[in-house]
């Protein structure tokens, strides 16, 4: 649920532009950081992890309007900088498939990128703290915390942008009836009830977080058994 599925044209332009600007800056920082490693060797890994994220994002769990992001796994496997680049690639591709607006790719990258980056650092921290519990528990807990934080960032964006349908409809506009003459005042539309929106999100999201945490914990645990080198990458 941390993914911003707000359609194009609903968020104010300033926040969309700010999203792109911040993403561009973070991408520049990430690219600068990964220049110190053999990027050519990492490209196939970025490709496969990004593809896995796309596959996860297209598996919709309709009743709770949730899809797994696998972004924490991306963070753990790729490291923060490469994971952020990977998240941007994923957002760009899925927006081309109509999944999430093109204009909100910047904001989506910030939200899901935060998930991946936080996931990486939380995993490293929890792994050190919970040394006796195994990587599965550390990654699952890191997933829940990251998803909670990224969902909060998403809600913060919605709150800051003061989204309401009246803004999306441009309040001064009118809609004509079928004769094309009489107008219906669009100001009659109510604004988004932020409290109701938060309740809806926090009612549905924990089910998704639990699922994502379980999948993340089990996948990381499996990978640690089979390819432990993947779970402790160089810090990129």
């Amino acid at each position, binding site marked *: 649920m941390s993914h911003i*599925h*707000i*359609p*194009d*044209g*609903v968020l104010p332009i300033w926040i969309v532009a700010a999203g792109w600007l911040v993403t561009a800056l973070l991408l520049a920082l990430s*690219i600068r950081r990964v220049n110190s490693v053999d990027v*050519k060797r990492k*490209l*196939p*890994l*970025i*490709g*496969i992890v*990004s*593809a*896995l994220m*796309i*596959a996860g994002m297209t598996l*919709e769990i*309709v009743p709770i*309007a949730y899809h797994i992001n696998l972004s924490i796994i991306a963070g753990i496997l790729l490291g923060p900088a490469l994971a952020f*680049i*990977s998240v*941007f*690639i*994923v957002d*760009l*591709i899925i927006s*081309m*498939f*109509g999944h*999430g*607006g*093109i*204009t909100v790719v910047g904001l989506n990258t910030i939200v899901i990128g935060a998930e991946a980056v936080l996931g990486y650092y939380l995993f490293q921290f929890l792994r050190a703290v919970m040394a006796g519990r195994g990587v599965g528990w550390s990654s699952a807990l890191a997933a829940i915390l990251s998803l909670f934080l990224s969902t909060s960032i998403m809600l913060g964006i919605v709150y800051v942008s003061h989204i309401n*349908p*009246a803004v*999306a409809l*441009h309040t001064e*506009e*009118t*809609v004509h009836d*079928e004769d*094309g003459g009489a107008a219906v005042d*669009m100001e*009659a539309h*109510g*604004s*988004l*009830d932020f409290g109701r*929106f938060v309740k*809806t999100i926090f009612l549905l999201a924990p089910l998704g977080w639990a699922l994502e945490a*379980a*999948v993340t914990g*089990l*996948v990381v645990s*499996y*990978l640690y058994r089979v*390819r432990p080198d993947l779970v402790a990458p160089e810090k990129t």
Partner: protein
Amino acid sequence: MDVSAIDYYANHGGSFLHRASAPSKLVFAGLLIASVVVTGTFYFLLGAYITLAALVFRTGLPAFKVITFAAYPAIFALIFAAAGWNGNWIGAGVIVLKALAAALASVIVIVTTPYPDVFASLRPFLPKIIAEGLFLTYRSLFLLLDLLDNLLKALRVRGGISRGKIVRNVVNFSSGIGLLLVRGLDISEKFYGVMRVRGYNGKLSDGYDRAGSPLCDAGAVLTGAVILALALVMRYEPGLESLGIYFVYAAVLALALSAAWGLYPKREAEAWKKS
């Protein structure tokens, strides 16, 4: 999301949109999305969506399947619309139509343009690592979906996924994803090795080199420009807002003609099947 079908449609169609170049279609989608951003008029959005549906029929591709691909964001748009619901369906309709129209514009580009062309035309605007990452991700997606398909079949056949056993299903599915990742990584490492042997030095292609038909390019850009112009006129000229309903009538007519074109003469509609 049926990526294989999307790729097949992009490579085997013969419509004017298939013949247009990738940059012209990206401009078309950009203009459409800009019109969705600037407008908030229900009838305009409905007209734009029906026009895009007419274009889908005109491509001769399986129209309902393509439109269904692009209907995915409606689920989330409905949640957002529900959060602001006050009994007026027009407000909710605007939110949903904005999502549907923008998504359909993007999907039209993807189903009529081979992905190397789309990414190659984006290459000048993207850092090298992202441009190469886009190609490799899309390539990996096909590998992964193949593996995923086999994995799901294997899980079902061996009783790894069964009704009502949620915990067991999640455990088996997660192990499956782990296996998928390991196998995918093996394949991509081999892929990397092959690329190195063939002289890969961090650059996969020399960029966009496929020219489209100038007439088709103009048609795509003009369609987008006309829709954006209409959106701007309706936004800033209050007296002309009634154009919205006439736009819907015109779009419905275009849809009927496109559907008839696609169904009756079976020219382009068959082209992608025969190849």
